[in-house]
């Protein structure tokens, strides 16, 4: 079960009934939850302060839309503010009219620079560019070997001078080398360094002067805590980076550091690194990040979509029947069709909280399977749909044949349906969500298939 902010807001605003306005007390209660959620997500506490104030100002006295619960209303405001703070999609690199375009990678130790160099090279390659890389990390044992090994794997040339040369010289020579080779992008890997290490920060400044990068990317671990602000500010002051690569997003860190960095430096996150494989790398989508930071997926758009797709009257009827635990195959079919009206399930899943972005790619939603389920239900008689207990062996065979499926598929569906009925019973004995699709957002039930 997900302990999401939307759940907590629901709890905090439980007492707000009807469609009136939010009182100051409601807003305070909600603000507390928002503050905690952001702090748990590692957003810098000063950034949190400003943000919560903004949300409070907006929420105070705000009209609650008829279609939303107060909690949803809050989620909507937070989502909008967060998305605005994260900025629009400024996730492009700038390319020099006179190649090679130089990209300088900088960051703390262990943030994932070297691997990111490889991933970026891979992405550029797939976009038809001809990248090259320079190994300017002479400090960490075997860092040069690591970049060379990545280069081999990707068939991307790597320039190095071993570990005895000066990184500034290596970068400079590397640029001349790339130009000669006619490569159009040069990625410069640098050693991880602490933002307070004067000598090494100075070295970066000199590399920058020497190779005049068109893009400087700060590689930042998504798990970074409050210190992200110091790190970003220092790197900004010394080398003025252009954007951030957020790494290790395949984990379950909320990644609030991204928000802090954007808030204090104004620099956008451009790329997201989502796995150890070299193609686990993508352009960053700030709208998705807002939901992630709050741990609620894009609940709001889900709510909005549901609002549009669900026939309200039908939903109310369904709710009535659910309350009486009379959930039938007709309802199942109905609900499924409404969900499908909301767009491809793949997209819908992306909005469900708790599913890390990286995992979604592996998650195949079999739209065909949904079609099969529809066909099976449609092959049932009205009587059978209302009372599935009637469906015995011979009827199962008939339904299977009628729908063009084998009997296992029918058995499986019946089993799933039983489970769903059970779930509905549990739900209806407790509190029933007003909108059946909250089951998706709330993470409680979810789809039975």
């Amino acid at each position, binding site marked *: 079960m997900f302990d999401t902010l939307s759940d907590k807001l629901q709890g905090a605003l439980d007492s707000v009934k009807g469609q009136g306005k939010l009182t100051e007390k409601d807003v305070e209660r909600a603000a507390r939850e928002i503050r905690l959620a952001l702090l748990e997500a590692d957003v810098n506490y000063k950034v949190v302060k400003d943000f919560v104030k903004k949300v409070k100002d907006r929420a105070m006295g705000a009209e609650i839309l008829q279609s939303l619960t107060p909690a949803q209303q809050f989620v909507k405001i937070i989502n909008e503010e967060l998305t605005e703070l994260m900025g629009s999609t400024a996730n492009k690199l700038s390319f020099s009219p006179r190649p090679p375009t130089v990209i300088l990678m900088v960051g703390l130790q262990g943030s994932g620079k070297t691997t990111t160099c490889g991933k970026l090279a891979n992405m550029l390659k797939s976009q038809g560019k001809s990248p090259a890389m320079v190994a300017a990390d002479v400090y960490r044992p075997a860092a040069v070997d690591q970049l060379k090994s990545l280069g081999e794997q990707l068939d991307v040339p790597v320039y190095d001078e071993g570990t005895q040369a000066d990184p500034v010289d290596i970068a400079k020579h590397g640029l001349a080398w790339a130009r000669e080779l006619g490569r159009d992008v040069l990625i410069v890997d640098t050693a991880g360094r602490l933002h307070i290490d004067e000598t090494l920060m100075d070295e970066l400044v000199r590399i920058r002067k020497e190779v005049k990068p068109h893009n400087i990317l700060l590689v930042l671990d998504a798990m970074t805590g409050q210190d992200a602000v110091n790190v970003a500010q220092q790197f900004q002051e010394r080398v003025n980076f252009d954007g951030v690569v957020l790494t290790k997003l395949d984990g379950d860190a909320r990644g609030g550091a991204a928000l802090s960095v954007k808030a204090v430096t104004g620099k956008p996150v451009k790329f997201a690194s989502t796995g*150890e494989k070299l193609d686990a790398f993508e352009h960053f989508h700030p709208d998705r990040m807002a939901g992630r930071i709050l741990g609620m997926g894009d609940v709001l758009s889900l709510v909005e979509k549901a609002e549009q797709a669900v026939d309200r009257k039908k939903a109310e009827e369904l709710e009535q029947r659910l309350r009486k635990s009379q959930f039938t195959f007709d309802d199942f079919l109905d609900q499924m069709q409404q969900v499908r009206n909301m767009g491809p399930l793949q997209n819908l899943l992306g909005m469900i909280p708790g599913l890390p972005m990286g995992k979604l790619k592996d998650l195949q939603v079999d739209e065909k399977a949904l079609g099969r389920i529809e066909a099976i239900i449609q092959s049932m008689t009205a009587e059978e749909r209302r009372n599935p207990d009637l469906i015995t062996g011979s009827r199962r065979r008939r339904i299977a044949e009628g729908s063009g499926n084998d009997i296992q598929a029918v058995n499986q569906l019946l089993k799933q349906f039983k489970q769903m009925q059970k779930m509905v019973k549990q739900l209806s004995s407790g509190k029933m969500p007003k909108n059946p699709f909250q089951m998706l957002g709330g993470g409680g039930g979810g789809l039975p298939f």
Partner: protein
Amino acid sequence: MTQNWSEVFVGVEEGARVEPPEEKQRKRRGWFQQLREGLSKSRQALQQQFSAIIFDQLDDEFWERIEETLIYADVGVESTVSIVEQLEQAADAGEITDSQQLLHHLRTITADHFSGADARIDVSKMPTVILVVGVNGTGKTTTIGKIAWHLKQLGKEPLLVAGDTFRAAAIEQLVEWGKRVDCEVIHSERGADPGAVVFDGIAAAKSRGADVVIVDTAGRLHTQVNLMKELEKIVRVIRKQVPDAPHETLLTIDATTGQNGLVQARLFKEAVDITGVILTKMDGTAKGGIAVAISHELDLPLKLIGTGEKMEHLQPFDAGGFAEALFDDTLLGG
């Protein structure tokens, strides 16, 4: 100040000391001082927090500021609440009337939040097997190099096993550390089965009479179920050779890590029974407060602190010193 490492490593000669390498003599400093120096660079924010505290009026705003100070150190909401609650009790009992007392209590309470479990590392078994695990880039390989160097200085004969067969040049990195420290590294080819190389490594240690085997592992996210299973398998492989091993399973946590560190520690603990935590990169400006939460909430002792990239940049953990470095005198605007 040289550390008395025989109080950390059980099984090394009584009173054994580690001398920093020659070129470093000039810069010999205790870890307190190293920590303070690191911390002082970004302490302005904290300092402002404290100076703004008005002591004759312990109002909501006052408590909020204390909270923020802790949150800013990455201590996390739950442990912050717990620390503040205890601080409030002290205040209610009239024990806090000035900033000195506040600081004193804050330090003691924070230090007391660390687990009381044994923070020593027993290397008296023949062989002692130490397994080092953690998320990518947290400092496993470097810390292994540092531990090996210290043990060597203390008269032990460590042997390193390159259990990271996944990341590019991970093997080369450990081999390089082996050269620096002058100890043997057992390794295979990249892409080989980590279980197999660990098996070979421990067998080699037994046949050669190495007394401490330190096993490096690939960085992995705690959310990668298969890779966590792989760790469990490595433990099983180790046990086939030495039934009561690994004697230590150490988790590296990067001091810059925020609240996710707690989840990391919890899941690693569930998978391989962590015996202690090493907090790395304490030479930066991050306060490493997540270590408070990890130690407190999961009852895991902190054992070592990483304070730089060189082999001598390793320190025993000391809760009092940690709290003192976290809440330094200069916070009071001195």
